[in-house]
């Protein structure tokens, strides 16, 4: 049975072209980029080439890019780095209630260490309200961190406007663009951000590699101290194959981005309509229009998400309930609760996220089997008696 993979928001398969680009940097060109001998020239150049590709892609200068081990490190680095560097200026941070755990738990950690954090509520579509944000800014606010698009419900935030507000108040602004970069346009100047996190494995790059954009002039304390790598902002021998693969993945993603966004948006809206029509007592979560082209998140009354996933898995369909990393948690998704769902509805949500290889035929198959699964589970649920 061929898998129908609809969990691209959790991770993507590394593109074969990306693997090909990486391969020479494991064994042939393996020199430590910091070394002085000629052997290391190729690795050093390869890193700088990847840095330039990313910089060009987001409208930055290569010097403003630091490679990290992934989206989580980038988020931790940005938030803890600003908190530490600007602690004499203030100790207040603003974020939203629907951030990824890499942001949320970093903020909770800082709260235990003398920082104050405002967790902005969102509306029913999962969008931060600009007036509330502006009201929350205080003289001691040192950082605003609001994600570009949400990983569970796909809602896209008005980052550009938030950035304008941040600028007006002289506050640093970080956005977690892990779900958007490579899928929709991301330009640090259009978005008015000072810091921006990305992660390779979300757009067919390798796992374990990410980057943080740090606008020139932004003081940031390192998260990983040590050697002089990355202009002294992130120590450790560089993951050369990972960085090269990241660069290649950026190149490939930008090449198809526009077309894919259109194609996936079409399939997405069609799929949503089909499911809502075929399955009673179901609802779409997240913004109907300002949402990631590949994100579909639907709640089904009276049943629980994991049991839907397990049933889908028997048909070879891979989907998720909210964020993959919290699938071992018992709490329903904080994102779904924040947009006003009851606990029960929040427990009954499934996320389908499309990718560049997703075909209409695959979605048709899912639309074929899902209603039966929902019906079967509802038949054995004491919470669904219609």
């Amino acid at each position, binding site marked *: 049975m061929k898998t129908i993979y609809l969990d691209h928001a959790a991770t993507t398969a590394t593109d074969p072209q990306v693997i090909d680009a990486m391969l020479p940097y494991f064994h042939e060109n393996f020199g430590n980029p910091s070394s002085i001998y000629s052997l290391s020239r190729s690795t050093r150049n390869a890193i700088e080439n990847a840095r330039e590709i990313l910089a060009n892609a987001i409208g930055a200068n290569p010097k403003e890019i630091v490679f990290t081990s992934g989206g989580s490190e980038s988020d931790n680095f940005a938030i803890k780095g600003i908190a530490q560097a600007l602690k004499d200026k203030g100790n207040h941070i603003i974020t939203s209630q629907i951030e990824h755990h890499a942001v949320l738990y970093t903020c909770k950690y800082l709260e235990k260490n003398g920082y104050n954090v405002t967790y902005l509520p969102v509306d029913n579509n999962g969008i931060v309200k600009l007036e509330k944000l502006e009201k929350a800014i205080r003289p001691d606010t040192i950082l605003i961190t609001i994600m570009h698009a949400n990983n569970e419900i796909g809602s896209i935030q008005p980052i550009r406007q938030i950035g304008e507000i941040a600028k007006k108040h002289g506050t640093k602004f970080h956005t977690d663009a892990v779900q958007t970069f490579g899928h929709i346009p991301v330009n640090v100047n259009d978005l008015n951000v000072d810091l921006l996190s990305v992660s390779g494995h979300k757009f067919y790059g390798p796992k374990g590699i990410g980057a943080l954009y740090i606008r020139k002039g932004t003081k940031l304390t390192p998260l990983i101290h040590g050697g002089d790598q990355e202009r002294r902002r992130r120590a450790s021998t560089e993951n050369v194959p990972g960085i090269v693969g990241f660069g290649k993945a950026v190149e490939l993603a930008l090449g198809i981005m526009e077309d894919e966004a259109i194609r996936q948006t079409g399939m997405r809206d069609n799929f949503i309509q089909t499911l809502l029509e075929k399955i009673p007592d179901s609802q779409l979560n997240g913004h109907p229009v300002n949402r990631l082209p590949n994100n579909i998140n639907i709640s089904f009354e*009276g*049943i*629980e*998400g*994991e*049991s839907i996933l*397990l*049933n889908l898995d*028997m048909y070879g369909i891979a989907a998720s309930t909210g964020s993959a990393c919290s*699938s*071992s*948690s*018992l709490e*329903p998704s904080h994102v779904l609760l924040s947009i006003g769902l*009851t*606990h*029960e509805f929040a*427990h009954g949500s499934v996320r389908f996220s499309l990718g560049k290889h997703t075909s209409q035929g695959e979605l048709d198959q899912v639309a074929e089997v899902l209603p039966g699964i929902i019906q079967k589970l509802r*038949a*054995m*649920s*004491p*919470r*669904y008696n219609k």
Partner: protein
Amino acid sequence: MEQYSEKVMDHFSNPRNVGTIENPDGVGHVGNPMCGDVMELQIKVKDNIIVDAKFRTFGCGAAIATSSMATELVIGKSIDDAQKITNKVVAEALDGLPPVKMHCSNLAEEALEAAIKDYHSKQKK
């Protein structure tokens, strides 16, 4: 998450004794949709023996599988013996549960307890 055992997956995908009993002798309704787990267990008792049991569950794979297994375990048992069925017994009968899912087996034990209690209280009337 750790993998579910084959037995869990078997009981999850082909749950035994799903549904309701007409005029049950005991009903247990436990859990809480807040936590994502609700179980309803109905039993039919004859001469102190549980002759039938049916369940309905709102919950994850482990919750559904333990519900199903619990009904299999109680059918044919005396009320006294049924009361000895703990969450550990149910989990073991399923060849174990992933650590994060162990709490789900409590659901079956609690539902059984509640159903027997309900049965006793109805008998006294």
